[in-house]
């Protein structure tokens, strides 16, 4: 197998205007009574993409997935798979398979029978089924458990059976509904990488629904951040994190310090923001904001430096008091209380075992960040 990096780096069909979308949602709306779970949503997903729908519960991401699987029909708009309108095609005739959040393993069937279920339904010859089941068991490393019943397996093993079962029919698209939600943290992290390897190896298109931003960032080529039935931003994990399009995205993905203010000056070197608390913040890029506009300056904690003395060349620096320190081993999280009472969060990587001049509670300290470390948001 080639290393993931070399394949991934060149994989960006969404940037190619000539690329044909594999899955397209066109103005899709789904209402339940008066409630619009999905509201006039358009989205394109490309072949072999690992696509994540990220959002809080109730944002419509699961409804979107269920419409793709065929369990719900859109109230308006259409869904295309390879250019074919899926409307009216029942779930049992769609070339997509789903891995359910609850795994939905058939409790009265062995692991083997669960994996073979879809193949038997298609009337595949017995020998071919046996071969495919063996291949799937090997893929998810469950060969010794073939004859067990689901209730005799651990949570992680069940998750693998569910995965093997949904992959056995070689679907064009694999849908994963919170695939790792029931696993503990360590197993979840391992499985994330396994899923990525599997997706590359099989060359399939994966659409995963998750509320866990870390999971989405780890696995996905692109993430669609959803809120109240609408897509707020679709971009690669790095873009979502470093260049969020709105306060909602910046706040939903990761931790952020947000300063509200108005644009005081605009020049080639960037903008100066008159911050509501009286600070003047320099930002290298002002986006579309013109003088007098209300903007928000968003900066991630790991881009904020904490020091006892004012650093000489920082773009922005403000003084405060060390309010809280959380030592997490790999990083230390500082909460610095500015003199007007607001808290600025900063994280420092513990690259050395012993830090001399360490700051401690109630020390005076400076927080500083470069002008190009944060983003200016207009909404």
């Amino acid at each position, binding site marked *: 197998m080639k290393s993931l990096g070399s394949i991934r780096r060149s994989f960006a069909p969404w940037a190619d205007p000539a690329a044909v979308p594999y899955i397209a949602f066109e103005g899709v709306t789904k209402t339940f009574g008066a409630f619009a779970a999905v509201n006039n949503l358009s989205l394109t997903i490309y072949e072999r993409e690992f696509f994540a729908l990220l959002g809080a519960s109730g944002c419509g991401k699961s409804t979107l997935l269920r419409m793709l699987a065929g369990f719900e029909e859109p109230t308006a708009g259409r869904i295309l798979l390879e250019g074919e309108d899926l409307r009216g095609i029942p779930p*049992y005739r769609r070339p997509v*398979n789903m891995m359910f959040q609850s795994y*939905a393993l058939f*409790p009265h069937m062995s692991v083997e029978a669960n994996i073979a279920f*879809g193949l038997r339904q298609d009337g595949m010859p017995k020998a071919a089924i046996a071969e495919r089941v063996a291949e799937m068991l090997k893929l998810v490393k469950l060969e010794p458990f073939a004859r067990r019943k689901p209730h005799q397996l651990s949570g992680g093993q069940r998750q693998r059976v569910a995965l093997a079962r949904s992959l056995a029919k070689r679907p064009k698209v694999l849908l994963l509904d919170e695939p790792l939600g029931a696993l503990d943290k360590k197993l979840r992290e391992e499985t994330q990488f396994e899923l990525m390897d599997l997706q590359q190896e099989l060359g399939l298109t994966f659409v995963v629904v998750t509320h866990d931003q870390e999971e989405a960032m780890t696995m996905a080529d692109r993430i669609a951040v959803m809120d109240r039935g609408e897509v707020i931003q679709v971009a690669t994990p790095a873009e979502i994190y470093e260049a969020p399009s709105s306060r909602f995205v910046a706040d939903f993905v990761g931790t952020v310090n947000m300063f509200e203010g108005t644009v005081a000056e605009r020049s080639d070197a960037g903008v100066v923001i008159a911050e509501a608390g009286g600070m003047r913040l320099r930002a290298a890029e002002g986006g579309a904001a013109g003088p007098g506009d209300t903007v928000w300056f968003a900066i991630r904690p790991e881009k904020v430096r904490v020091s006892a003395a004012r650093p000489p060349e920082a773009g922005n620096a403000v003084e405060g008091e060390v309010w809280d320190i959380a030592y997490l081993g790999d990083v230390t999280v500082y909460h610095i209380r500015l003199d007007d009472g607001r808290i600025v969060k900063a994280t420092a990587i513990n690259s050395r075992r012993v830090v001399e001049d360490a700051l401690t509670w109630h020390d005076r300290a400076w927080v500083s960040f470069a002008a190009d470390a944060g983003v200016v948001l207009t909404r």
Partner: protein
Amino acid sequence: MNRLLAALASRLVIVVPYLWLLVFFLVPFVIVFKISLSFTALAMPPYTPVFDLQQGLSGLMAALGELTVENYLWLFQDQLYVNAYLSSLWIAAVSTVLALLVGYPLAYGMARAPESVRPVLLMLVILPFWTSFLIRVYAWIGILKPEGLLNQFLFFLGAIDEPLIILNTNTAIYIGIVYSYLPFMVLPIYATLERMDHSLVEAAQDLGCPPVTAFWKVTFPLSMPGVVAGSMLVFIPAVGEFVIPDLLGGSRTLMIGKTLWQEFFSNRDWPVASAVAVILLVILIVPIMLFQRAQARAQEKGL
């Protein structure tokens, strides 16, 4: 001291059900069994020997020596009893299958109904119990008799020219048993279906099953514990049923409950009637044990 009391109390909790079984099941059974080994007599009580504690241990031993298995042998010599047992089992089996055919769709519909109306539907299933069982069976006479409601209705529709003879046939017994025991079939099936994770059916559809296939491959096998429980709850009491065959069945209807009643009250042959009852119990213990094994297995699986 407190701990001792607590330990005693926890033992007592286990003792209570056993004591209940002993007093209300085992003791009566032993009495019936003893009578079944006795002879009929024109006396009060109408059998002999009678244990008399005043005659001491030797008297008791003498009385025990008089007991006989003749009544049991008699049950197998007269074809009537064997036929009555077989006929009872057959009628109970047919009624159980019919109750399943009616009860399963009912339970399925209830389990698939919106959550808000389910309690109402459940109530409706239990509602007939609010009227006396006997009155409800009598009501069926009014419906099924030749000049009854059913025939009048069919005449009104012009569907028949002469009345259907249903009352006093086995058909009437089937109707009576299915009607009376339907809730016992519906409730356990409803309980298993309602508990079932609906995503299992969706998974089956996702893997290529049309809805009907998904039902037979997933829903039905997973509802088996409910089907078994419901079938047992209908079959076991139906075998010994007396009121329904007596009121709705004809003179030619042979059921062991009726035979037992006749032996006891018409013939005043308490020993043979007791033997009939003991054999009935033995016959029913087999399905009861099968039922318990099935339940234990289901519990083990965590279904």
